[in-house]
């Protein structure tokens, strides 16, 4: 599939939420040493992240974002036709977390709900799926939830991941609107990158054993088990250089835009070094590359909407912005969309306290 253009879909709003618990990179100095922490922090552009409370799931954070968004939009709960939950840290092996959230958000039992197992590319794929449901699937209103609690799958002793990932959850509301401007999507997959970003054991290909759960030290001192996230930074960087510049060129061409016509480039917040390198290669004007890593880290499929909430909300509440959103990484999977969004409902980033675990919307919404 090359470019896919969707017309008749409007983004009504975006809300992002993070656990109300800060963890600074400095707090890892005891494990990795101050010098290493500073070097890594400077490279990835992260100073702190928001980390889930014990027992808090991605669903709780997404719930907070969705509940806030639906209230701010004044959308009656029964008007939501479909609910999509994009995450690689669902509540259970089964049932789908979106089913649980249908109940918690008091959506209609006539709502179609399902999960999508993607990470870095997840928000773009989610927008594409939601748009397709609105154009061809008989839906009039769709809520897309994206997020991860990656902190649960990272070994705190692994310097390549322990300092990078943060937790977050977001909600994007989309609706059918004949007057909306078109969106151009480009999507792709390369499964040969499977081993570059993987939790190797714990499900069915490599079931859990005492051995898979045992952390083993590497040459550089980092320590992880087969049930912890493994990330090969160099391979992922090389993949990004191979695919992403061409991806952005393709989506701009699909939209018929040239680079100077774009108001904001919001890329998956993988790491600052990589984003700045991409911006240089693509010759993006510096102020148009959106960065939100310093206080959130890499939040997986939440990172694009979270960056929009944290950095573009004041503008998106009142203006229409030509935006290029792109997500790329785990899979390998990638996608980009060129769209004009705003004005739309954009609450400030929601902070989720420990009491919100398992929360349910009050009756009568």
């Amino acid at each position, binding site marked *: 599939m090359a470019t896919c253009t969707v017309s008749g879909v409007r983004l009504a709003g975006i809300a992002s939420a993070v656990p109300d618990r800060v963890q600074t990179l400095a707090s890892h100095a005891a494990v990795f040493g101050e010098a290493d922490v500073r*070097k*890594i922090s400077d*490279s990835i552009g992260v100073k702190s992240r928001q980390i889930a409370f014990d027992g808090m799931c991605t669903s709780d954070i997404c719930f907070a974002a969705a509940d806030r968004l639906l209230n701010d939009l004044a959308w009656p709960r029964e008007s939501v036709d479909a609910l999509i939950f994009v995450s690689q840290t669902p509540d259970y092996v089964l049932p789908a977390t979106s089913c649980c959230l249908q109940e918690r958000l008091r959506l209609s039992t006539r709502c179609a709900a399902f999960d999508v197992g993607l990470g870095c590319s997840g928000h773009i794929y989610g927008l594409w799926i939601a748009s397709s449901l609105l154009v061809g699937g008989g839906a009039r209103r769709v809520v897309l939830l994206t997020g991860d609690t990656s902190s649960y799958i990272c070994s705190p002793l692994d310097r*390549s991941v322990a300092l990078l990932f943060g937790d977050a959850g977001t909600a994007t509301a989309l609706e059918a609107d004949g007057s909306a401007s078109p969106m151009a999507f480009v999507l792709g997959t390369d499964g040969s990158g499977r081993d570059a970003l993987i939790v190797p054991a714990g499900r069915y290909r490599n079931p859990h054993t005492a051995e898979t759960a045992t952390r083993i030290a590497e040459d*550089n001192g980092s320590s992880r088990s087969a049930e912890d996230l493994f990330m*090969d*930074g*160099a*391979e992922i*960087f*090389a993949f990004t*250089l*191979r695919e992403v510049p061409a991806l952005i060129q393709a989506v701009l061409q699909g939209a018929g835009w040239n680079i100077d016509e774009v108001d904001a480039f919001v890329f998956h917040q993988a790491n600052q*070094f*990589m984003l700045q*390198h991409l911006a*240089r*290669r693509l010759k993006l004007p510096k102020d148009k590359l959106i960065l939100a890593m310093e206080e959130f880290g890499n939040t997986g499929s939440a990172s694009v909407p979270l960056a929009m909430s944290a950095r573009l909300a004041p503008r998106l509440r009142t203006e229409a912005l030509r935006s290029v959103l792109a997500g790329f990484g785990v899979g390998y999977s990638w996608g980009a969309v060129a769209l004009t969004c705003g004005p739309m409902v954009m609450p400030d980033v929601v902070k989720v306290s420990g009491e919100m675990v398992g929360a349910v919307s009050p009756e009568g919404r």
Partner: protein
Amino acid sequence: MMTKREFLSELEEILEADPGSLKGNEPLNGLEGWDSLAVVSLIAMVDEQLDMTLSPKKIAKAGSVADIIGLLGDKIAP
């Protein structure tokens, strides 16, 4: 295209080594500063300056600075 000396200067910067300290034959696993961040910085530098994507697998197989230079082929003037 760059000269071998220019490449060594770029590598010195990545490794935070003193300018002129690299001779070009050093084994990599003894080189101070040669870590995963340095590998990523090297890939970025080669991409930007030589418009070439180095393979991480080939970098991992390289034993010395000379081996790395070998990966760049005719992009390095002698």
